[in-house]
């Protein structure tokens, strides 16, 4: 606290710190349709928005928080900016502070474990606002940690997504060199994350689909298949790619296929040896039959109505 601060200035500073220590998440969850925000939540959000758009009051505190690595305060600011879709980097006063926050990810004080564990969420959010941020460098820094962990942190997924979209060719090369066509592969969770992104980026071929189907982990294989189902519009040969998985040895893969294969491909699972898969296929076939019957009945009733008019 500055020594010559008046009581009113002191209270304003305390208010600022308090305002950005309170999570804004509840308000924004509510704003997505769960329930209406209270007048107090609306007031908090409006005050935060004003302070972000007019940096004069907030920026000195951002400077302090950056020097002190005040994670809570900075996270709260960046998360509100993301929630209201405000790119702070586009505002002249914010440009330098945002670049400084993003660049802090590369300093010696910031360990790759800290980033991977999500302790630098604010800096990653800032990096997402900066033009031409070096996502490849950040990916390399966290990839070494992720390779050895059987859990994928949300932070890593965010970095991976940005890396793959900013440098697609480099990402494809890495995925193929380190996973698809490598003998020494990283942990299953890392493989699953890469498969998922690889498919989402539109790179899947019959050959790489076969590699995902043959992965030594059911979870990794499911991650790749799930991503294919979610990104079907990116593949003209979607059916052929799906069929690469139908002889999988994993129950979870067969169950996912039984639930998502188009009706006309469901019989390709008939030869599966998976017990749970077989039950799921039976249920799906029964559903298909029931739907056909219902459609026939509806069509017949429609014809009768027309002939009665």
């Amino acid at each position: 606290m500055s020594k010559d601060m008046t009581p009113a200035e002191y209270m304003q500073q305390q208010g600022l710190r308090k305002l950005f220590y309170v999570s804004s998440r509840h308000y924004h969850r509510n704003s997505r349709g769960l329930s209406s925000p209270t007048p107090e939540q609306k007031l908090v959000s409006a005050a935060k928005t004003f302070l972000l758009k007019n940096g004069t009051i907030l920026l000195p505190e951002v400077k302090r928080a950056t020097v002190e690595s005040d994670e809570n305060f900075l996270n709260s600011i960046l998360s509100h900016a993301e929630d209201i879709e405000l790119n702070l980097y586009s505002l002249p006063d914010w440009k330098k502070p945002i670049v400084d926050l993003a660049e802090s990810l590369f300093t010696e004080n910031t360990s790759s474990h800290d980033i991977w564990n999500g302790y630098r969420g604010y800096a990653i959010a800032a990096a997402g606002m900066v033009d031409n941020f070096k996502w490849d460098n950040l990916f390399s820094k966290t990839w070494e940690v992720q390779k050895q962990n059987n859990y994928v942190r949300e932070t890593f997924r965010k970095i991976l997504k940005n890396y793959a979209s900013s440098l697609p060719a480099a990402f494809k090369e890495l995925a193929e060199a380190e996973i698809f066509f490598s003998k020494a592969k990283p942990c299953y969770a890392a493989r699953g994350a890469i498969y998922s992104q690889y498919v989402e980026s539109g790179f899947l071929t019959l050959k790489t689909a076969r590699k995902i189907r043959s992965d030594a982990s059911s979870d990794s294989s499911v991650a790749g298949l799930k991503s294919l189902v979610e990104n079907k519009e990116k593949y003209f040969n979607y059916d052929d790619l799906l069929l690469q998985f139908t002889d999988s040895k994993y129950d979870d893969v067969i169950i996912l296929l039984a639930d998502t294969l188009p009706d006309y491909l469901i019989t390709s699972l008939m030869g599966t040896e998976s017990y749970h898969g077989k039950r799921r296929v039976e249920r799906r076939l029964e559903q298909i039959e029931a739907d056909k019957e219902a459609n026939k009945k509806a069509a017949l009733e429609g014809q009768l109505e027309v002939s009665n008019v």
Partner: protein
Amino acid sequence: MQTGTQNLEIVPEEVQEDVMSEEEVVNYLTAVGVNSSQRQYDETAKKMYQAYLELPLSTLVNAWEHLNDQVKIAILNSHLEDFKRWIKGASNV
């Protein structure tokens, strides 16, 4: 003519964020700071809280609507003579 029932889609309520002026934001921040300082134990916060309560009422009134009840009572106590005079004046009207 169109017959039959139409499916009505439930659209989530659109949240209109209020727009605040700089003065309103400053007053709100001040009130948030005072409300939180009232519960703090460190010497600086206590000193500043006490000093804030003693500011002229014309200054305190700006943040009044966002202050919590305990702070409002503390302000009344801090300016008791002014309030007594005001009440006496009002009761003579």
